[in-house]
């Protein structure tokens, strides 16, 4: 698996480089917005253990992100 950048399943853990796609995703504003908008659209965040109060907090944050996305979308048009 090493030639694919992944650890040997019977070996030791192997650090992932900071330049990998995952980290780029974290850093990409668009991806973060998508995550937020997906959640707003009903993404089942309860699987991540969110309580009702946490969901409300998330919804508030998502609304802000969605508003920003809508503004961005409008600006691009």
């Amino acid at each position, binding site marked *: 698996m090493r030639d694919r950048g992944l650890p040997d399943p019977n*070996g030791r853990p192997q*650090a992932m480089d900071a330049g990998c796609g995952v980290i780029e995703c974290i850093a990409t504003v668009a991806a973060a917005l998508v995550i937020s908008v997906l959640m707003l*659209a009903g993404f089942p965040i309860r699987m991540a253990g969110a309580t009702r109060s946490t969901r409300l907090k998330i919804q508030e944050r998502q609304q802000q992100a969605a508003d920003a996305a809508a503004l961005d979308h409008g600006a691009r048009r």
Partner: protein
Amino acid sequence: MYQHFGLVLMVNHACNLRCTYCYTGAKAHRPMDYMVGARAVDRAVASLARGGVLELGFFGGEPLVEAPLILDLIERARARTACRASRLRINVTTNGTQTSSEAWDVVTLPDVDVAISHDGLPHVHDRHRRTADGRATSDLVAQTIRLLVELRKDFSVVMVVRPDSVDALADGMQYLRSLGVTRVDPSLDLWTHWTREDAQRLEAAIGACADLWIDALPNFSVSWFDEKTAALGRAPVAESARCGFGAGEIAVAPSGNLYPCERLIGEDGPDNAMRLPGHALAGEHFLMRVAAPARSDEACDACAMASICSTTCRCSNYVRTGRMDQPDGLLCLFNQVCARETARVLQRKAKTLPVREVIHAR
């Protein structure tokens, strides 16, 4: 005192199935005595801060062979948590083959989170999950799933993922979707050997499942990707007692012996090194326990995705390496691929998502 306390009661070692990959040992009829369970509930509630949450789980063997006991213990837990202004969350993991009225009473309680084990495609499920006399069970479990869907009961399905089933994982998820399942929790078989070739097929299967998941959102939930998405999106998820591993989470064997996680009880034999000191009947609470060491590996310390990795599960680490703080290459690979594939499909979605329409639809 804990804000969250996890108590898992293994109510019997017995099970009507003989799943070939089961890690809980011999299926002897060794039921938990009511007072063992009741005292464990009392001690767990006494370990909670006022207003805290008791996360009460029932495990086996097959827990629903003890459905009347479970109903009694739920009643006890409700009374005790109400007295302390605490909240109660209940979960049951079942093989989905118990059809007694008491078993249905348990799984249809509105506040019980039910997880049913089904491995996906019928022939994949029936390869390993058969009754003690060798009969296939996929049809019976599918019937249970259909009934729960008809009853609009919220539940999840646990799919065991093994080298001999990994190629059929995505098709298995599609099959479960066709039955009406909306939440899937795939679970890697950590007790078996995974070769490099197996790991490559696991990588491909995770990718296929991620595509399925993103296309089915928001109506289909797969825990592997849900959790990574929440981590990638920095969603402020709620606290849980899960993985307290002895400090804030206790598993109790039918004998009353204590363990840090239900997956480590096995046959509860005298040589089980994971048994904790003490007994369910001896003591007033479950405080004063120290958490086991967390993950410690140089590669993990240097890893860019350490903060979104679940190799902090001491139980999984122990199963794989014999050390609670030491994950192995399989766990590392699994986490990296899940994170990478989650990021990939989210970015694909980002290019197509009609942001304005989604917002207006809400």
